[in-house]
């Protein structure tokens, strides 16, 4: 989806303002928002690609004006509502009106360190050979799917070169929509900055973008 989340190359957002001695959290509620989002992931009702798409699908004015943890919370609420895990009324009042749905896993405090340390690798066993070779010239497809994709707009329909083969990875474009992991080869593609941004970019700079095979064609 060509949404506001796809920010690469925009020029309207002003300068970067690093905060010196920035705290890890700016308010206690941010801690709980992060922790709830992480913990709810273990329920097994969605995957990381579904949760990214939920955030991208928030109203654009909300996405731009809210803090990142507010966006996470809104994404979490929308995922739970869609699945009937909570109701609008329950979210509003905080009063539980129906028992919870069955979930895959509720991680206890004792289990959490190991669960966090295990992570959720997305590399799968390859069943085909890579379709592109390191050093090969490629072109990205000019796709504009209505669903989730991880090919940024600034890198569509552009020429680059395969810099590395990263592995055989779950494909977000299908995984975000319950259409299966559809794993495929992931390539690191090197683009010349001026191929992507013309004279606005500095000659000799490079931009590296990880692209699944489905985003690429032979040049």
């Amino acid at each position, binding site marked *: 989806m060509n949404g506001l989340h796809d920010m690469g190359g925009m020029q309207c957002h002003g300068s970067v303002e690093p905060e010196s001695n920035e705290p890890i959290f700016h308010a206690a509620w941010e801690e709980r928002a992060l922790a709830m989002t992480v*913990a709810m992931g273990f329920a097994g009702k969605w995957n990381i690609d579904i949760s990214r798409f939920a955030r991208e699908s928030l109203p654009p004015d909300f996405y731009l004006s809210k803090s990142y943890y507010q966006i996470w919370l809104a994404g979490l609420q929308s995922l739970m509502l869609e699945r009937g895990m909570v109701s609008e009324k329950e979210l509003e009042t*905080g009063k*539980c009106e129906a028992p919870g749905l069955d*979930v895959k896993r509720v991680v206890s405090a004792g289990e959490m360190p190991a669960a966090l340390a295990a992570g959720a690798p997305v590399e799968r066993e390859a069943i085909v050979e890579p379709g592109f070779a390191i050093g090969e010239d490629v072109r990205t497809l000019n796709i504009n799917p209505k669903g989730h994709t991880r090919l940024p707009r600034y890198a569509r329909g552009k020429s680059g070169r395969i810099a590395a083969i990263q592995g055989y990875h779950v494909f977000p474009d299908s995984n975000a929509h319950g259409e299966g992991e559809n794993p495929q080869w992931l390539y690191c593609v090197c683009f010349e900055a001026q191929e992507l941004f013309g004279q606005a970019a500095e000659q000799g700079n*490079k931009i590296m973008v990880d692209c699944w095979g489905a985003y690429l064609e032979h040049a």
Partner: protein
Amino acid sequence: MSDSKQHSKHHENGDHDHDHSHAHTDHSHWSDMHLKVKTLESLLVEKGYIDPAALDVIVETYETKVGPRNGAAVVARAWNDDAYLRRLRENATEAIAELGFSGRQGEHMKIVENTADTHNMVVCTLCSCYPWSVLGLPPVWYKSAPYRSRAVMEPRVVLSEFGLELPEEVRITVWDSTAEMRYLVIPQRPDGTQGWSEEALAEIVTRDSMIGTGLPLVRMESKA
């Protein structure tokens, strides 16, 4: 400490002065978020979806255990141990796990090494992908629209906003974290640090130097 604990303590104290001293600051500004999040948490607990004590563990993990000190230890080891650097190049995920750092948002790691003519910097233009296992949670600026939008097109200008002015001849390679690969920048080892211990080296490796928006800090007095 959980949000609910902080709130109950606050009420027990009945501390009105406390309220006044924080008036018109973030505290009052965010009070509706506190309430909203507290309400949501109690609902999810009642539904049986989460264990509140497990949330405390998540917060504690990212406040005290998983942060940029992890990445700094990796960089310091890489600077001091060529065999380790080779293992990082070969399989960064495994080499980083040797030091005990693994897991969430660090499942597929790559290192990118700065050289005399190439400076690396990392961004996620699409969301906020960041190597949690070595750097912890991302700072606000990393997740902000200005950084995400401009890092790919005008990285040199963005770096200048961090106070980092690279020599004109140095080219910049920007890594957009569009997949689950997570990038850790290995800055160049500063001159004058020969013979330093890994612990001393790790001290000068800043978070920003491992994102590529800064350089290691070498204070004049420690240069000698």
